[in-house]
């Protein structure tokens, strides 16, 4: 017990000290800068308010992104230039083709299923009276780490040899329905879709909460007016509700595309990327930190970035339009 506390108390001390120092430094800067007056006050305020964020972003995101671009044209140990060799390898190698195929499946299916299901739930919730408990239950998986989710779902996908009892829910159900259960996570390409189910389970609540807020934001008079005109059910949804929440729907869809593209944890914790389930983000980690080929890893990161550029352009155009209106 005593070694436990002598090991762990200093860590907590470190945390408290770090927070205290951070806040104390800020307080001192605010106090000193607040005394500046006249013309100097504005530039000083800009530097102090915005400076820390810009420095952190420069060293944390912008600089590294440029450096990764350079690394992607270099060899495994970053000593020599190799041109487009890393990219050529990524798009021609036999095993990488499976990785690219899986990544494509992920961005094709998961955003649509997740956002669509979220929209359906949001519409249904709007017709319900006491929605909060059900809403919380569906949202709950969002708070669970994807590592935790993968472990949680292993109790669904678990498989035992046919002479042993099936303790996995899916295997047991299959057996009761008269099918022969197999080792689900080893069966290609089914396993990739099983991992997608974990993602859908985890993210639907998020889509639901945002879309539900958007639906409740549709002005009452518009709905009432069209209801008086005789619009009901599906026609009301298609004619009024969906057009009014379309921009939110697309924002959520775009967020899901980016999230599923960057997906790493589910694959890492469930299969480690084996059995033909790997995706670009996971392969990028393996290439860099396990096979120590910084060049190939960097090329994968760049491809990831290129894939999100359309989403980026769409979001910025959207944002500019919104700011122009308001």
């Amino acid at each position, binding site marked *: *017990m005593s070694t436990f506390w002598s090991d*762990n108390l200093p*860590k907590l001390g*470190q*945390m408290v000290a*770090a927070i205290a120092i951070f806040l104390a430094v800020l307080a001192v800067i605010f106090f000193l800068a607040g005394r500046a007056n006249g013309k100097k006050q504005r530039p000083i305020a800009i530097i*102090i*308010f*915005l400076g*820390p*964020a810009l420095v*952190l*972003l420069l060293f*944390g*995101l912008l*600089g*590294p992104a440029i*450096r990764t671009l350079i*690394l992607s044209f270099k060899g495994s140990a970053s000593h020599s230039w190799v041109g487009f060799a890393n990219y050529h390898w990524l798009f021609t190698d036999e095993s990488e083709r499976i990785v690219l195929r899986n990544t494509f499946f992920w961005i094709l299916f998961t955003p649509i299923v997740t956002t669509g299901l979220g929209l359906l*739930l949001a*519409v249904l*919730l709007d*017709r*319900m*009276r006491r*929605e909060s408990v*059900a809403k919380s*239950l569906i949202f*709950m*998986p969002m*708070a*669970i*780490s*994807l*590592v*935790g989710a*993968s472990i*949680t779902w292993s*109790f669904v996908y678990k498989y035992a040899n046919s002479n042993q*009892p099936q*303790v996995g*829910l899916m295997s*047991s159900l299959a057996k009761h329905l008269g099918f022969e259960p197999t080792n689900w996570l080893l069966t290609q390409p089914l396993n990739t879709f099983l991992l997608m189910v974990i993602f859908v389970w985890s993210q639907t609540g998020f889509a639901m909460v945002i879309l539900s*807020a958007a639906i*409740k*934001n549709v002005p*009452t008079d518009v*709905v009432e007016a069209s*209801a008086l005109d005789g619009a009901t*059910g*599906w026609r009301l949804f298609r004619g009024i509700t969906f057009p009014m929440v379309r921009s*939110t729907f697309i*924002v959520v869809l775009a967020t899901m595309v980016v999230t599923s593209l*960057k997906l790493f944890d589910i694959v*890492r*914790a469930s299969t480690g990327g084996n059995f033909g389930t790997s995706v670009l983000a996971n392969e990028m980690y393996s290439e860099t930190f396990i096979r120590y080929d910084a060049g190939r890893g*960097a090329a994968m990161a760049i491809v990831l970035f290129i894939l999100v550029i359309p989403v980026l352009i769409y*979001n910025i155009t959207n944002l*500019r339009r*919104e700011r122009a209106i308001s």
Partner: protein
Amino acid sequence: MSLLNRSKAPKLAEQNAGRKLFGSRGATITVWIIAVLWTIPTLGLFSTSFRPKADISANGWWNLITHPHLTLGNYSAIFSTSTVSGIPNGILPYVINSFVITIPAVIFPITIATMAAYCLAWVKFRGSDAVFYGIFAMQIVPIQLALVPLLNLFTTGVHLGHYTLVPGLHIAGKFLGIWVPHTMFALPLAIYLLHNFISALPRDLMEAANVDGASHFVVFRRIVLPLAIPAIAAFTIFQFMWVWNDLLVALTFTGGTEGIDPLNNKLAGLAGTWGSHWELLTSSTFVTILVPLIVFFSLQRYFVRGLLAGSVK
């Protein structure tokens, strides 16, 4: 905020209109079926964590309904400070690491982002819009792009030929080496969300303060900070869940340093080595799930408000 107050009114109207397609009862039943389906995996994990080891491999967790046989033994094993679970001191040190990593990694970016958001919203200067769009764009940059160069920065610094631009910081494998990347990666979303909220604060309030001769620092502390609490709380939920549940950043920047591994990180490794110890794995997983759930449910009322300040228009 007015968005929420209006929420009750359209509901009745739409209820009448929508009854043809989804009757109120049909909707309720469908939602509850999905809610129950969504809860089953978590329920399986939760109930397995209270079952003795022998039972877990003998039959499925749903047998608990007919043969209730529960134990707290799994939890006492993982929290035991002797090596019952096979790891010295049990999982408690990793729980502590998770808190030590998460709390500063929430406070630092929120503070820095609130300051930046205030500046971009109310202390406009030439090019401030361009800076805002630039930061907004960085939300989408996959953090995978930044990992290796940032790790290099921490270990060897930045060199241009023979010139050292930035010396090696030597903070990899220390807590500071995880707080800093988490802070950096959180800033784009944090600044964007807080900017939306802070820029919507009443203009009269800001102008009145300026007339009174209050400096930007006083305005920030006395007016902006207290009024931005809902947005700050909403982002706290996001950032807490993100850091606590993160695997990639922790894996990269702890570099497997035993003393600072967060629980989630350890758990991903244990999923392999504890392959047959489901009783330990499930109870540990439940511990990691519990903390963000508590944070979420205690700050839940701010969540939608913070989101509405964000992308929903």
